[in-house]
């Protein structure tokens, strides 16, 4: 069997890519996409651990998928409201509130 460490490294690599996306992207939509990538990396980690430990990781993964879907719905509703008001989804340009 493939050692658990390899799955954890894959999950960490995907998480890192998602982390870079959140920090480097300017469009709010792409930031939400990167957050989704991070959450899916967590899912891989959970399911791999569950297969090795025969534990509740799969149950946690199902909860995470549900919560991620709900979160994306909320995030896009708020971004849509901001787009309708300001005309942009570029997070650099929404700077009414500073310091």
């Amino acid at each position, binding site marked *: 069997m493939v050692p*658990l460490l390899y799955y*954890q490294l894959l*999950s960490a690599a995907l*998480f890192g890519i*998602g982390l870079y996306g*959140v920090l480097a992207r300017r469009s*709010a939509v792409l*930031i*939400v996409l990167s*957050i989704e990538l*991070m*959450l899916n*990396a*967590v899912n891989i*980690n*959970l399911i*791999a*651990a569950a297969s*090795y*430990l025969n*534990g*509740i*990781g799969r*149950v*946690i993964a199902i*909860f*995470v998928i549900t*919560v991620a879907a*709900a*979160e994306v719905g*909320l*995030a896009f509703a*708020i*971004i849509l*409201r*901001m787009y309708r*008001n*300001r005309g942009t989804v570029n*997070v650099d340009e*929404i700077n*009414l*509130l500073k*310091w």
Partner: protein
Amino acid sequence: MNNNFLLLLPEFIVTGLAFVVLGLDLFLPERRKWVLPIVAVVGLVVALVVSLRYLWGVSDSLYDGVIRVDGYALFFKAFFIALGGVVVLVSVDFVRRNLEHPGEYYGILLFTVVAMMLLAASGELLTAYISLELLSFGLYVLVAYDRYNAKSNEGATKYILLGAFSSALLLFGISQVYGLLGTTRFDEISSALSSADALSPGLILGIALIIAGLGFKVAAVPFHMWAPDAYEGAPIPITAHLAVGSKAAAFALVLRLFAEAFMPIVEQWQILLIGLAVITMLLGNLVALAQRNLKRLLAYSSVGQVGYLLMGVAALAATGSGGIMLHLVAYAVTNMAAFLCLAAIYNITGRDDIAGMAGVARRAPLVGLVFAVSLFSLAGLPIFVGFTSKFYLFNAAAAQGLLWVAGIAIFSSLISLYYYLQVVRQLYIEPAEDAAPIPVPRLTLGVLGALFAGMVGLGVYPAPLMEAVQYASDALF
């Protein structure tokens, strides 16, 4: 598996109440919607009475430890129900004047109360995560509630992007801890950590990410960037709910997590928490000095308060945990009073910056008095509850040996006194531009009176509260 679901009766009552409020909103005509906050408050009072009557002295759990019903959970349940009630009362006038769709507002507010209650009762990482997410989702929507206001949209966007990011960090930490220890229950994590001889790098990463994720939720530095914008953009009652409720709920989780699950490795995380506490205290209070908007000032001041609470968590021991809970209650009462005063002033003048407070003490004497008292209490001046709670918190930290951290806390308290006094100066000394008296609704005056009595009464005679806190922290250890 016999589960006594009657132990969850308060949560069921508040959830049912949320659905009742949403359902009533569907059928009530516009002119009768003033009924909704009354229904909410009455329901919350019923839930409070039920929880105190039936859960006093109970120490039990459901699902074999996943949901704990003990003195600690009961203390926070009662606290959050009372807090929800006060937020509803603060919102009544504000929502009537400034926001649409009151039914959904009160319904979502009640769902956040349920989430806070479950967060304090969770004995396991997944339950904690789900409750935290329910609380966060409700707050994302409530911060964005002022739909056509650009500041509300911007604050909500920053809040949800950083909030989702932080919950992803928290979740990765949970998955690492689960993968390497094999369990998510707090008691089993504790026994796994005490039997492990050395911490693997993956486990250190997992615990560090959990601390980072929770640090975002309480707005500790360097994870505080969302707080001033979300506080400034949100409607004032929701700013109060964010500042008090979500922080207290996250600290309820942090206390149980660190006291139960992570206690065996206390040397490793104590120094990290001390570092976070010091930079949070200093940065929160120093940046607050430069603020011109009152909501932002209160946001940075609450970041500073989080620093004191983190110092209390770092000094966690059987004797120290009471100080944190006492400070949370004191901070809640004081901040609610401050935000209610701000809401009362904003509803009439439309100003929420510091210069807009000029001469308010002459225009609305009672509001000015309670505002000044709450600011003095936040600074930690004697006879008010802020002094009592800070004294016990700093005492607990010093008793654990963190003398220099307590010294820095006292120093940053002195810094905070300066900016609180700036606001008091505007209230009492500066002349008003428009000397018309500010009409304050009787409900607001009543709630302000109760909060004022709380601040002074608990400051002079804190014994009943301290007994309750002692009861709660006994259940924790």
